[in-house]
């Protein structure tokens, strides 16, 4: 993957996330963690290579089916991306509204979730009146509110204290226990150590294999996120043909 005519940011990435797995993604600042997440949540297409999501090659997915895929993915953006004109409650409820749920149904659930992340008193606050950490917790609440099949979190604890960080980790682990595939890009060593989950390290555009207990590999049905960006330059070796099986990606 590359931005415009800039050098490639990600190369030779071969990543398969097993459904229900929990990974951390680390790497120096600027390594391409956010870019990799962007590929997975379909904000950017790969300049070459193959991305399979929930068993489908996303280049073959019809444009009108993309929203359905996106609704199964929750994202905590590094820069939060809250809507400034909506209250905390409305920001968190956004994915539910988009999915067509009725306000009366979801309101209490959303308020409960906000209380859980410590914003129970600020339901009607606008994001611009929240502190940095409060905004971050709001973004996290929005990402998890509709129990996504895949949760991508980009530096979700950069603005909160340790206690809140661990609380958020517990929230992610709880979701994971319920079947959500979790991928967290972070610099927070303490978080990584506490969680004891496999760590993927991205450096120089390449992905190192998981450091701690490797993710189980195998054919599996159900939710599945697969990101891949194959080399394109003629000097690089051509990407191997992906196996036609319904499961993993390759290259």
């Amino acid at each position, binding site marked *: 993957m590359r931005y415009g005519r800039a050098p490639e940011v990600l190369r030779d990435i071969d990543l398969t996330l097993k459904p229900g797995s929990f990974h951390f993604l680390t790497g120096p600042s600027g390594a391409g963690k956010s870019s990799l997440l962007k590929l997975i*949540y*379909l*904000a*950017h*297409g790969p300049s070459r290579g193959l991305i399979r999501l929930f068993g489908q090659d996303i280049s073959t997915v019809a*444009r*009108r089916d*993309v*929203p*359905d*895929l*996106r*609704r199964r993915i929750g*994202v905590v953006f590094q820069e939060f*991306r*809250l*809507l*400034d*004109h*909506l*209250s*905390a*409650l*409305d920001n968190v*409820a*956004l*994915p539910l*509204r*988009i*999915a067509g749920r009725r*306000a*009366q149904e979801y*309101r*209490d659930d959303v*308020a*409960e979730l*906000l*209380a859980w992340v410590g914003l*129970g*008193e*600020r*339901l*009607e*606050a606008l994001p611009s009146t929240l502190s940095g950490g409060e905004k971050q917790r709001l973004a996290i609440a929005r990402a998890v509110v509709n129990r996504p099949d895949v949760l991508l979190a980009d530096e979700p604890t950069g603005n909160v204290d340790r206690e809140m960080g661990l609380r958020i980790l517990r929230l992610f682990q709880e979701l994971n226990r319920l079947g959500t595939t979790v991928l967290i890009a972070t610099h927070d060593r303490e978080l990584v150590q506490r969680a004891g989950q496999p760590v993927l390290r991205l450096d120089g555009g390449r992905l190192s294999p998981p450091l701690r207990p490797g993710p189980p590999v195998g054919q599996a049905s159900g939710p599945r996120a697969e990101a891949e960006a194959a080399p394109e330059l003629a000097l690089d070796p051509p990407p191997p043909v992906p196996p036609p099986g319904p499961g993993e990606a390759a290259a």
Partner: protein
Amino acid sequence: MTGLPAQAPARRWRPGPLLPVGEGRDRALSFVIAVLCALACLTAILALAADRAASGWRTQISASATVLVRPGRGQTSSEAAAAAAEALAGVPGVTEARALDRADALRLLTPWLGGGVLPDDAPIPMLVAVDLDPRRPATSAALRAALANAGVQAVLDDHSRWLGDVERAALIARSAALGAGALVALAAGAAVAFATRAGLTSRRDVIEVLHLSGARDGFISGLFERRFAWLAARSGAYGALAAILLAGALKAFGGQDGFTPLLPLQWSDLLAAAPCPLAAAGVAVVSARRAALRVLRAPSQA
């Protein structure tokens, strides 16, 4: 903070609008659209009146002719005029031919000579006023032939000398009015389209967040279409109202003597402003949709 407690009755609560409302940007946009719509409506109304005035002149002039009768031997001028009128009335395309009596003739001369100045015994030529069917007016040749047949010595003035001038003037007035109307309407439409696009681009962040949250293209562009259609319709309505009030004031206070003969405004002309809100909304919808879809197509899957 006075956030609603989580257990507040869910019934009372309503989610906020997905698009930000009431920004200064929107107010400026509304105002400008209203001004342009008012100008467009006003121009349309006046164009209608000008068009009516122009065709009024034209039919008035082409639908009449004047015959000046010179009494033949053994005839008084009144008798000669009556004979001429009778002859002309029979020509197809003539609605009426009327011999003017002395009083009528004097009255017609009055605007030019002033009233009551001719000595009572001044011999004035007798006139026959001929009204023609405006749709199929009799030709000058037919009128002349009829007079010759009746043996009346007369001079026909079919106003053709003036007709050319008046037709040119009417054409110019008409095309100027319609041109101005079209120009202003075009400008208003372009401004609506342009400003809608600009107003939407500044909410790109909203579009992107909705997009990444799995909202469909139609859902997102629908938000913008409704928002800008409503904004444009309201502004257009204000503009139309302003134009109607202004034109109505012209009509009411311009008076019978002053403005109206020049520009025969009718109350029904004010209806020309009626489609304005709808037209503005239509333009806004189309441009909002196009702009929204362009933003939606651009960033993802690039």
